[in-house]
């Protein structure tokens, strides 16, 4: 007999599913992080009563997101 057993999961399909799940989770984590930065960043800026704190938190978060996005883009091109 040749070919694989159809009852067994197709390794390629399973791999694609795993990659999709990982992509979904990455997307969700990034979006959740944006929400968390807005929530805690705003409160932090008022707790420290310093407008610069708010701008620093948001600015640092935007930079971090950019670095992560550029890094992931570079890695996917390799």
């Amino acid at each position, binding site marked *: 007999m040749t070919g694989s057993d159809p009852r067994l999961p197709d390794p390629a399909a399973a791999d694609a599913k795993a990659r*999709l799940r990982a992509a*979904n989770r990455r*997307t*969700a984590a990034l979006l959740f992080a944006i*929400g968390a930065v807005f929530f805690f960043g705003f*409160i932090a800026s008022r707790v420290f009563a310093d407008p610069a704190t708010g701008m620093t938190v948001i600015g640092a978060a935007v930079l971090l997101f950019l670095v992560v996005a550029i890094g992931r883009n570079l890695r996917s091109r390799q």
Partner: protein
Amino acid sequence: MSSVPHDHVVDGHAHDDHAHGHPTGIMRWVTTTNHKDIGTMYLWFSFIMFIVGGCMAFTIRAELFKPGLQVVDPEFFNSMTTLHGLIMIFGAIMPAAVGFANWQIPMMIGAPDMAFARMNNWSFWLLPPAAILLMLSFFVPGGAAAGGWTLYPPLSVQAGMGTDLTIFAIHILGASSIMGSINIITTLLNLRAPGMTLMKMPMFCWTWLITAYLLIAVMPVLAGAVTMLLTDRHFGTSFFNAAGGGDPVLFQHVFWFFGHPEVYILILPAFGIISQILPAFSRKPLFGYASMVYATSGIAILSFIVWAHHMFTTGLPTAGILFFMYATMLIAVPTGVKVFNWLATMWKGSITLETPMLFAIGFLFLFTLGGFTGLILAITPVDVQFQDTYYVVAHFHYVMVAGSLFAFFGGTYFWIPKWTGTMYDEKLGKIHFWLSFIFFNVTFFPMHFLGLAGMPRRIPDYAQQFADWNMIASIGAFGFGLSQLIFLYAVLKCVRGDGAKAPAKPWDGADTLEWTLPSPAPYHTFETPPVVK
């Protein structure tokens, strides 16, 4: 963000997990992870809240039927206006939009379900506890929140326990919205059928993608603000409490940083529905698809820089007033692009006037009217006169009721053949439209005159000079509310299967993926993703 649009799978819940022997009865609805079931629950929840909020509107209009105090005491009246606003916005319109998203987005992009099916279930089941908290607030010492849906301090800092329950309800509703938004964005970015590029997505999906980003950006800000309100009330902080050195106007800035994008959160999904209905009944493709996408994005971006037009009377610096006035007027440009494109879609189309199309045209006419009064209110010297008058009440009801609500009615009639497998009763649908259209205008058009004459909002009693238009508005409100029973009856008829059997594609001009499915749409759809060319 990665996009792997092949071989779909739903996170933590492969779609074939519940292909056999899923629960029946009440447990089906409690435990369901199916996007269609959850969409149905969202839509029914929103309709129930629409009825609850509508009963509050009845109370308000009964009290305002004639001058003097005759139905409720002023404190309760203030709670009615506050809870009417909160319930209609957070309980009725937003969940209705999410209900449409749940039903339609997976079917429109060829996905088997939402990306996070279990989180989808949680998103919905957070809503009933929040609604219960809001309703419970009527029964606690001090009564429900009565300082307006905007929860401005100092009233909200000084009010009774009802405000705490409202704040918790907002926290829960915000968490639900953020989870829903994460789900929708992930679904749209990662689960599209092969070949469906972003610029091939139906407009409804585009408007929801942008709406979901808006929600993620502004809901946490509102949550942060109300958290700080809570700490001001109970933990001795003074973020907004002037007595402790806080700044009440800061709350207004933060609230409207959320509140203005919120207007677009409520209206953009409605734009999406209208953009599906008009081409279908004009039998032409949507005019200027790309410009519609860019206009929607433009509206969303501009919505972040116009918040202080709600605060022209708080003593902003002149430069700030000018900036916010011109930025607000700028929103008319992308909105005008959309209205132009909708009209151009209809131009020389082979138009038929079934109920969804009637609601879409009604939307176009009345929403544009609401948009124009918005432009008038953007002019600072005019706004200073109209601030907190019935002119503002008329304006936002033209946008929210004739805008969002009419679109949702149209969307329901448009897609209910797909949802239930039964055609709605066209005669009932048309009666519903015309009664809604007429009574809506009878209710809200006179409010422009009341506002121009100087009648303030949120008052249970008024001067004799406002009596006639108030009486007419109240008659219109009762007529509008009762007309919605026709909608309920028409929907129940479809749910019971009382009507003609719906074909897979009941509308000639509809061309999105859901119309390739049989009616009613099977419990599981697109388990093998379609290929879009």
